[in-house]
């Protein structure tokens, strides 16, 4: 089964239809997704700003990572569950949406950035945990993370607009979005 075929199958399941057509449930899930931005992206951004060395400079770096980790994991879990439900409610359109695809790419890049940070400069955090301005590689990881999460938030917001829906866009966007135009 192709990915698009899978999305079409998802769209036909009764829970997907119910969520899509519900009066309040979809809005509530979306509100939870948006408000949890504060927990996940907000705390991640403050950690990034600490890594860049522009705020909370007196807080040891490992305090930021360890004390905030449970909240970051909790926030991320809610983001993934509510985001998954939003996709589940409108799978075919989302799958063929350029902003959705861009968001997934940015999410993967943000994940790679976290991995590289942990396997790289963070290993020597004992040496710079108290540095008001962390080493260059840590600052770069912070800047990259801020930019990627901003791009993820913006792309996520744009999914809701129909500017690039399959029936109205140019051939190049159609290709990037993997549009099968008559699948609406």
């Amino acid at each position: 089964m192709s990915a698009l075929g899978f999305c079409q199958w998802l769209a036909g399941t009764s829970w997907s239809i119910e969520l899509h057509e519900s009066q309040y449930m979809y809005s509530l899930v979306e509100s939870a997704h948006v408000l949890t931005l504060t927990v996940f992206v907000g705390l991640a951004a403050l950690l990034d700003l600490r890594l860049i060395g522009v705020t909370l400079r007196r807080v040891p770096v490992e305090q930021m990572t360890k004390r905030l980790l449970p909240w970051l994991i909790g926030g991320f879990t809610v983001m993934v569950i509510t985001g998954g439900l939003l996709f589940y409610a409108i799978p075919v359109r989302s799958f063929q949406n350029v902003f959705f695809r861009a968001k997934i790419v940015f999410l993967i890049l943000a994940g790679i950035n976290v991995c590289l940070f942990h396997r790289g400069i963070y290993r020597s955090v004992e040496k710079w945990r108290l540095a008001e301005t962390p080493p260059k590689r840590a600052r770069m990881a912070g800047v990259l993370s801020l930019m990627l999460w901003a791009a993820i938030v913006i792309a996520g917001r744009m999914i809701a607009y129909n500017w690039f829906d399959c029936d109205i866009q140019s051939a190049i966007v159609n290709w990037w979005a993997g549009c099968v135009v008559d699948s609406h």
Partner: protein
Amino acid sequence: MDPLPFFQWCESSLAGAAIKNSTWAFAVIESAHLLGLALIGGIVLIMNLRLLGLGLRSQPMSDLQHDLQPWFIGSLIVMISTGFAMFLSEAVKCYYSTPFWVKMSALITALIFSVTIQRRLMLAESSASSARSRKIVALISLLLWFLVGASGRWIGFSG
């Protein structure tokens, strides 16, 4: 006095009409509003978690207050200016929107609470307050800001 004429004037103003008639403007402004939301929400959360004895609990409260205050003010400026721009483009809808009025009331209350009671508590020695009073202040603050965010999101769903 009924403020409806003022709201109508806002929507017909140059900026209000420009945003309303543009395809992209509202979405771009709203994205900036969301980025500001993430940051201001994170700041409010870190401060209140500290009052609850969670998160950055080893840090002196006054350090957090001092360090985060400029970022709080900065993100508040982003929130208010982008929020005001969106308001201009749909002021009449806002006038008839219950979530809008709930949000504005909660916002004013939350701001006053933050710069008076909460700020004083954060800047004082921790021996000057009981753990219980710190928790109550944190819960009130979290509730108020949650109300601001949730009713704000609901403006978009109504009307």
